[in-house]
């Protein structure tokens, strides 16, 4: 009897294991916490013919309204434009780690998301993403995309991804607070430092900044201080291999960033306890004078109480110590490649091409301000008459920067232009701020990683900055 019972139990266990091995459903939430969707609730019902071939696209786990916007705009457009294919979006909080693992395992989505060209250059070198040169020619991408962003997506002269939004670094400020205090947005380095001290004397933070929940934010603040204290050529020379990252000039700039931190300019002692959304809430609450950040932070303004009074939000270029000209820190929020093993490369290219249109920029920015300023040349003339509030503000900020960027007044943001191990080393700039390492030790560590990655050909082609 016992033997029969044991055999029965064994069979039951085997059956339950087989049941567990069944594939997850295609919609809803899977075990990784990812959500997938082909259409937003409000979207027009597309032809959901089961015979439609699925094109998959993983994206990071943005806030739910933003996810709905993306599904409405991108899936809505594509799935209604034809009846043979269906674009399926999946939002994953761990997309940055899921993509390389899935690529290595051969289970990656058709459209490959990356948090910057440093990721795609690694994928390209392993032959995991497609050379897009033929599509670039077919759709005229080279003529339509801003050169500095297009070049960043190439490896050995071949295009492997298209850029997501180009965001520019600068200073956000609350116009109501400035009016109350009688302050003017700073135009020079000295004016900016004087404003920081005035803010601290008034008992508020000089700058809102924080890395809670996303430690890599260190590179936003660290690189902006360096790029405006010394010329952007310092990064350019190091990245192009013409000089080391570890120069006396770089060491002094890193030391300056530590000085700012120790003076409490970066949210005092609360840098580690403040996330990007809270930073913008500090600005809304008039508890910090300015926020030094890329324009993608507008999406966090939209989540703060400042969203109720969008006319109070101001944005200016961060002054530099070496010129009175505006210099904009340029970065890419994300970029998109095509999986080398997709059976539908032409359809994926069609989707990427739509993402490079003014229509897509406007429709996405309407409900997701700050994240979708795709670097197309038409952006300078895009019709913004249908946009209001923060959506209009987003486009206007980038529009204002484009002529300066075209003239070479730009600086490189590490997360976009540094290769992976170098950017990881750079994110450790807080070790200098906290007094764990000296600036010399930090620069030497970054230089070691950068030299190895330059030698391995992992740095993307770079446009030369004017300064």
């Amino acid at each position, binding site marked *: 009897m016992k033997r029969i019972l044991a055999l029965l139990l064994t069979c039951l266990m*085997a059956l339950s294991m087989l049941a567990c091995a069944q594939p997850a459903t295609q919609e809803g939430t899977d075990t990784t916490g990812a959500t997938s969707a082909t259409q937003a609730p409000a979207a027009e019902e597309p032809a959901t013919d089961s015979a439609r071939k699925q094109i998959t696209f993983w994206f990071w786990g943005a806030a739910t309204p933003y996810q709905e916007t993306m599904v409405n705009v991108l899936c809505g457009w594509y799935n209604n434009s034809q009846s043979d294919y269906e674009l399926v979006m999946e939002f994953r909080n761990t997309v940055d780690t899921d993509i390389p693992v899935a690529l290595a395992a051969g289970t990656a989505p058709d459209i490959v998301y990356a948090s910057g060209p440093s990721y795609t250059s690694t*994928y390209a070198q392993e032959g995991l993403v497609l050379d897009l040169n033929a599509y670039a020619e077919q759709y005229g991408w080279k003529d339509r995309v801003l050169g500095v962003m297009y070049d960043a997506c190439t490896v050995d002269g071949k295009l492997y991804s298209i850029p997501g939004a180009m965001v520019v670094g600068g200073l956000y400020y609350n116009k109501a607070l400035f009016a109350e205090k009688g302050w003017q947005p700073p135009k020079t380095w000295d004016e900016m430092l004087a404003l920081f001290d005035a803010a601290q004397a008034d008992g508020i933070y000089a700058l809102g900044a924080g890395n809670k929940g996303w430690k*890599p934010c260190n590179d936003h603040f660290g690189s902006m201080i360096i790029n405006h204290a010394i010329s952007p050529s310092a990064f350019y020379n190091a990245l192009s291999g013409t000089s080391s990252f570890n120069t006396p000039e770089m060491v002094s700039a890193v030391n300056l960033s530590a000085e700012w931190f120790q003076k409490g300019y970066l949210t005092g002692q609360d840098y580690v*306890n403040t996330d990007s959304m*809270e930073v913008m809430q500090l600005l809304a609450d008039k508890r910090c004078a300015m926020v030094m950040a890329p324009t993608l932070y507008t999406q966090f303004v939209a989540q703060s109480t400042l969203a109720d009074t969008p006319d109070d939000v101001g944005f200016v270029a961060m002054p530099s110590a070496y010129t009175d000209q505006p210099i904009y820190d340029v970065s890419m929020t994300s970029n998109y490649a095509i999986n080398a093993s997709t059976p539908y490369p032409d359809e994926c290219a069609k989707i990427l091409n739509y993402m490079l249109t003014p229509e897509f920029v406007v429709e996405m920015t309407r409900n997701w301000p700050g994240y979708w300023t795709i670097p197309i040349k038409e952006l300078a003339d895009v019709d913004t008459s249908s946009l209001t509030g923060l959506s209009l503000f987003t486009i206007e900020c980038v529009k204002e920067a484009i002529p300066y960027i075209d003239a070479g007044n730009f600086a490189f943001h590490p997360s976009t232009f540094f290769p992976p191990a170098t950017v990881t080393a750079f994110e450790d700039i807080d070790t200098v701020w*906290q007094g764990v390492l000296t600036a010399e030790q930090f620069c030497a560590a970054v230089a070691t990683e950068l030299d190895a990655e330059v030698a391995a050909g992992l740095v993307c082609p770079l446009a030369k900055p004017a300064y």
Partner: protein
Amino acid sequence: MKTRKKKDVRESKLPYHLLSLPAVLLSGSIVLIPAIQTIFSSFTKWNGISKTKVWIGLQNYKELFHDWIFWKSLTNNIKWTLLFITVPVIVAMLASVLIAYYRIGHKTFQAIYLVPYLLAPTTNAIIWLNIIFSPSAGLVGFLQRAGWISITSPLGNMSTALLGVAMVDIWHYWGFLTVIFLAALRQTPMDQLESAQLDGANGWRLFFHIYLPNILPTVSLMMVLIVIYSFMTYDYIYLLTMGGPAHSTEVLSTYTYSLAFSAFKFGKAAAVSLSMGLIGSVAAFFYTWLSRKEAVE
């Protein structure tokens, strides 16, 4: 005759072998094979997605020997272990003895103590980050603005960040330990307790001479498990500080993750995880030895 006997023995054990087969298959496929791959990868230079791994011998281990973040992480793991084998164990022991001794509302207390343990680490981390530690919306921010006391979040300070994270994890864990200890305390023979009480033993004597000897095997096993968990700890540190500020809360698991998925240095990450696994194995070996010893006794 002998062959027949052997066959009988084999047949009688067959269902047990079959029953253990799923576990063996699972362990083989999701533990053993990746473990072998990890050991091999630790001797290679590999970016995690390439089909080729370049054999570099002991280079990754040599680099780790000179890597201050690795040593910082290892030290933090040791500090974490020391904190966890003392603070929650003492608190849980005290709470369980009090509940066992007084027997008033013990079911309610057990349920309350278990709540943080039942909540997902993400939920607990969000509660502490946003409702307690946040300078904007949290208790710390409220007290700062009210000016009653000068207080800052422990996570923002290099010297208190690890304690701050450990405090949250201990808050989540001690209730579970309390319930385990309480279950063990309930196994204390009543005759021993009654005779000790008749002999006039006070609370301390009851604890040290009756309760503690009876629950000692459970306490020892829990301590070994705590050591194993402490060297694998990841969730609360990643959720609360991501190893920051300036690596002050970095532990081996978070460093492994960062090397693998930020710097694409899977070979070096494998070397770190292997060293973590070796320490865990020593504790696991000790755990097995204790379990067997207990079974024999």
